[in-house]
């Protein structure tokens, strides 16, 4: 789960990582009140779960409280890479002497947490990695050893931080960032930029924070931070129904069981010349009600012209899937073509149930490839 900047900063503060003082605002009037309370100048920052908001005009300086109100009015409602801005973070403007970068990520390849640090912060880190790789210091942490003061020292010395005051502050932030990473079970904690003020104070000016969905059951406070309104409305409905759904741009609704098979089905629909409308995974179980729920999500997408069910029963039973399809077609009056391919557990029963129902818009196919071809033909 990705957190907003203001949420990530709240977690940073909990672990003692210094940030600037700020307030959240959802209206221009609230932004003005926040600026009055904090003291000007302030920065008005769009809160969106995507990058590139600075370039899109989502971050603006305001010299006065009325100006903060005006800037907030411009930013609220703005569309940044498909995300509508509904919240702005108002923060006391910081004087910046230098911009560094510090992150802690989940290095899947090494199977260890990985610190990355550079004094060339404030820009896209992939650019630093590409143009001046020597300036980017990488350091793995052994998860059983944990993070010790030497990790912080190594990062600042290898990163050539000259000032001893900065060295001490950054090394301390390194330790606290590790505590936040482990304490919140994060997959990513990034501070870009980590700024140095003219007074020599080091602070996190931004935050990128991603928490492991599988660990949310034991972090109720973080789980509550999920902004259900921010997700695609169909994806939000799917989450509510317990269906894994990702919206794509085409016309063929794709429904499979299991992530790998569903991903492969989306690929095969594309390879035979079609354009998938979504990725929808019924999951491991998949009883009749699960199928009804999934179809309810898929048909809300107005672009859908045909649906391809590709089921390989393991735990999932094909007769249950067939019953769910019939139930959904009847309940929701689905009129467009549904192509069904059933194999595996109870496949014969499932096929018989569908044949006996003899619905005009139901098409059975024997293989995944033929099913995909048929669905693509019928979606035109």
């Amino acid at each position, binding site marked *: 789960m990705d957190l907003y900047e203001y949420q990530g900063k709240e977690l940073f503060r909990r672990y003692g990582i210094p940030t600037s003082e700020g307030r959240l605002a959802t209206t221009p009037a609230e932004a003005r009140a926040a600026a009055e309370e904090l003291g000007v100048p302030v920065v008005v920052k769009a809160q969106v779960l995507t990058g590139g908001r600075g370039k899109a005009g989502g971050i603006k300086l305001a010299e006065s409280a009325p100006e903060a109100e005006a800037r907030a009015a411009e930013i609220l409602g703005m569309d940044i890479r498909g995300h509508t801005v509904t919240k702005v973070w108002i923060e006391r403007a910081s004087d910046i002497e230098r911009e560094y970068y510090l992150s802690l990520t989940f290095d899947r390849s090494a199977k260890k947490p990985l610190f990355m640090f550079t004094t060339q912060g404030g820009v896209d880190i992939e650019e630093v990695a590409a143009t001046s790789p020597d300036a980017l210091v990488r350091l793995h942490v052994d998860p059983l050893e944990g993070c010790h003061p030497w990790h912080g020292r190594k990062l600042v010395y290898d990163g050539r931080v000259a000032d001893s005051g900065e060295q001490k502050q950054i090394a301390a932030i390194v330790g606290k960032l590790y505590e936040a990473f482990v304490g919140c079970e994060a997959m990513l904690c990034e501070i870009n930029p980590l700024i140095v003020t003219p007074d020599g104070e080091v602070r996190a000016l931004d935050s990128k924070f991603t928490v492991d969905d599988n660990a949310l059951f034991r972090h109720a406070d973080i789980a509550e931070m999920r902004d259900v309104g921010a997700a695609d409305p169909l994806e939000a409905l799917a989450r509510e129904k317990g269906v894994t759904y990702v919206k794509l741009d085409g016309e063929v609704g794709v429904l499979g069981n299991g992530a790998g098979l569903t991903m492969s089905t989306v690929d095969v629909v*594309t390879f035979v010349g079609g354009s998938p409308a979504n990725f929808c995974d019924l999951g491991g179980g998949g009883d009749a009600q699960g199928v009804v729920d999934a179809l309810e999500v898929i048909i809300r997408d107005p672009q859908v012209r045909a649906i391809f069910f590709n089921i390989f029963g393991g735990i999932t039973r094909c007769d249950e899937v067939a019953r769910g399809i019939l139930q959904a077609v009847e309940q929701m009056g689905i009129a467009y073509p549904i192509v069904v391919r059933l194999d595996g557990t109870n496949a014969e029963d499932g096929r018989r149930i569908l044949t006996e129902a003899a619905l005009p818009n139901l098409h059975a196919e024997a293989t995944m490839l033929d099913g995909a071809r048929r669905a693509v033909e019928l979606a035109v």
Partner: protein
Amino acid sequence: MAILVDTSTRLVVQGLTGSEGRFHGLRNRSHGTNVVAGVTPGKGGQDVDGIPVFDTVASAVSETDADTAMVFVPAPFAADAMYEAIAAGITTVVCITEGVPAHEMLRIHAHIQGRGVTLIGPNCPGALSPGKANVGIIPAEIFREGSIGLVSRSGTLTYQIGHELTQLGLGNSTIVGIGGDPIVGSSFLEVLALFEADPQTQQVVMVGEIGGDEEEKAAVFIQSGMTKPVVAYIAGFTAPPGKTMGHAGAIISGSAGTAQAKKEALETKGIRVGTTPTETAQLVAEIAAG
């Protein structure tokens, strides 16, 4: 022969008294797996259809000589169950449970290094050696015994490819689902090395998907460390970046982890990659036919 599980496997099922554990434990036994014990704290002394249940893995091991554990307990308790199995001297642990926190897996992965333990999973369908033993939830009736090793990050996609192989008259030595999480106990590399050393296995199918770089690492190993032919399939060519495609591990982040990059990494090492499950099975059949 086959790998990981066979006729010599002595299986203890952690969570045997739960509904899923019971269903699959008994199904594994009906396929011929030697299921010697179950473990559920507080239910020691009971039995599940004649399989004795113990309170601890240690007592199950000392009473029954179990050497392989299948973990079927809910996600919040799965890490504990894996540590308990390892502490009791189990050398092969198969964790089916979905939703184990990634930080737990980081620590367990570090913990098993140098202990002589093979961990498969979590969030995986397990391992099946057709005609010998089935440890997990793979529907054995789809597969037949043969010489093709199959290793995959996915469950149902494995069944799909196994089914395509069966249709072409090909069978499997062992089918291994390594799991779809960011950190799993065994990666492609470890399983490929086992297949390379297994006399029954003549060639291998590797079924990957978007996310991480295990397919890229496997490509290097296949070229330098394997004599047996490998055919690959990658799912997720059309997946958009930044969206998790069902498996926690299946996400394209930045420029890394795309299906295209994996395909290219494999092909530059001379490994053939099928564009669909059907074509993948056909490539395997071509190689098998010589």
